[in-house]
């Protein structure tokens, strides 16, 4: 195998990794907001339920969650899932897991906004949703950029866990090449891919942070 074929195969796997990364964010960033609302709900049972969900997501390994989502439909309900279910299961597990983490980040951000902001908005006549959308959430975004950056960088690396379900993402490809070639070149190149991708993520998040630097509290 030439270096070019190796890089080509890895790049193909990288597309799948990228896809997992992208759809996990698309699903978990909004879902995380719902999670944070549930966690702060006035209705106690909702609060307990969401709290329980978060504790499971944070308290058990992601790899175990992947297996439960993948084998669950068959082992629990006898449902036969097709080949495509590998990637679907991966996305479901990732989105559920990351929504829990993002939910806690949103919540800490929302709770860190001083009460006076809510009160000023209330006296000015803003409705509850206007207050959240116009006044609170923009300030929350600025505050949560650092923990979000950490979590997103972790996600880039976590995409490699999809190999456990046999999804042909980059790490799966690299492992296959390494065992057939008998050297570590594919791992090295995959490592460079992950590293470069995270450098890009860090760069973008720095830009986002700068975009929010037009004010400070």
């Amino acid at each position, binding site marked *: 195998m030439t270096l070019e074929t190796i890089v080509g195969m890895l790049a193909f796997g990288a597309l799948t990794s990228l896809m997992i990364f992208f759809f996990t964010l698309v699903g978990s960033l909004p879902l995380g907001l719902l999670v944070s609302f549930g966690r702060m709900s006035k209705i106690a049972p909702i609060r307990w339920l969401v709290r329980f969900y978060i504790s499971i997501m944070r308290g058990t390994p992601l790899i175990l969650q992947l297996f439960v989502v993948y084998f669950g439909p068959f082992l629990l309900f006898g449902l036969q899932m097709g080949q495509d279910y590998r990637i679907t299961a991966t996305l479901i597990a990732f989105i559920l897991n990351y929504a829990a983490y993002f939910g806690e980040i949103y919540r800490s951000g929302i709770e860190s906004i*001083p009460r*006076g*902001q809510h*009160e*000023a*908005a*209330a*006296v*000015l*006549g*803003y*409705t509850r949703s*206007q207050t959240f959308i*116009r*006044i609170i959430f*923009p*300030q929350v975004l*600025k505050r949560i950029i650092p923990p979000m950056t950490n979590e997103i960088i972790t996600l880039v690396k976590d995409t490699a866990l999809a190999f456990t379900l046999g999804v042909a993402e980059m790490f799966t490809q690299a492992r296959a090449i390494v065992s057939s070639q008998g050297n570590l070149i594919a791992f090295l190149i995959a490592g460079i891919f992950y590293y470069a991708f995270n450098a890009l993520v860090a760069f973008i998040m720095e830009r986002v942070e700068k975009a929010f630097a*037009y*004010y*400070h*509290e």
Partner: protein
Amino acid sequence: MSKKKTNILRIEHARKSFGETEVLHDISLSVDTGEAVAIIGPSGSGKSTLLRCATLLERLDGGILSYDGQPIAQSDEQGQMVYASAKVLQEVRMKFGLVFQDFNLFPHYSVIKNVTDAPIHVQKRAKSEVLAEAEALLNKMGLQGKDKAMPCELSGGQQQRVSIARALALKPEILYFDEPTSALDPELTGEILRVIRTLAAEHMTMVIVTHEMSFAREVADRIIFMDEGLIVEQGRAKDLVDNPQHERLKTFLNKLET
């Protein structure tokens, strides 16, 4: 229509507790159009709580709260407090403004956006009209040229003037101030007091909680002295300061002098 002048604000037998402790015992007061009322009293006497109940930030536990003669909160037969519908309360909120001790400007909005956002998005008024009025208000507050500045770029005194402009932009019938100068360095209190003095000269209806006794004496038509959740004494500003009747007020005024 009755010819009788209705009070903008009318509070009757108001009670408010936090848990077991009652912090407003039996407060009755009314404010007429064009009146400037100062509320004084020792720390913990319930001044802020009274303003917060009047501005619907806290719920009363008893009594009647009315704006423009319309009761919006009162106790029912069982003694339970009943508030008007959310829609009515929302309309009532447009009748008053509140200036906070620590400004509570929106840090992510520029000065002009702080002032115009609520008139545009809450009152749904035309943007061009709101902007023109906001510019005029900022000029009046001595903030010309500051419209694009962010709150964090301003001094405390300037921030407080923006927050006054923000409250005035909604054209309230009555404006409440909760110790508007207490968070400021002493050399900055003057500019805020000057603004309030101007508003008083224009007969803006105001209720001002303050520790600035000479200011209250000079600007307010009436002073209310509160202690331990009660209105102990009230009267024409100069009479009350120069000739206090109750021991508690005498003690309070003496302490301030020393």
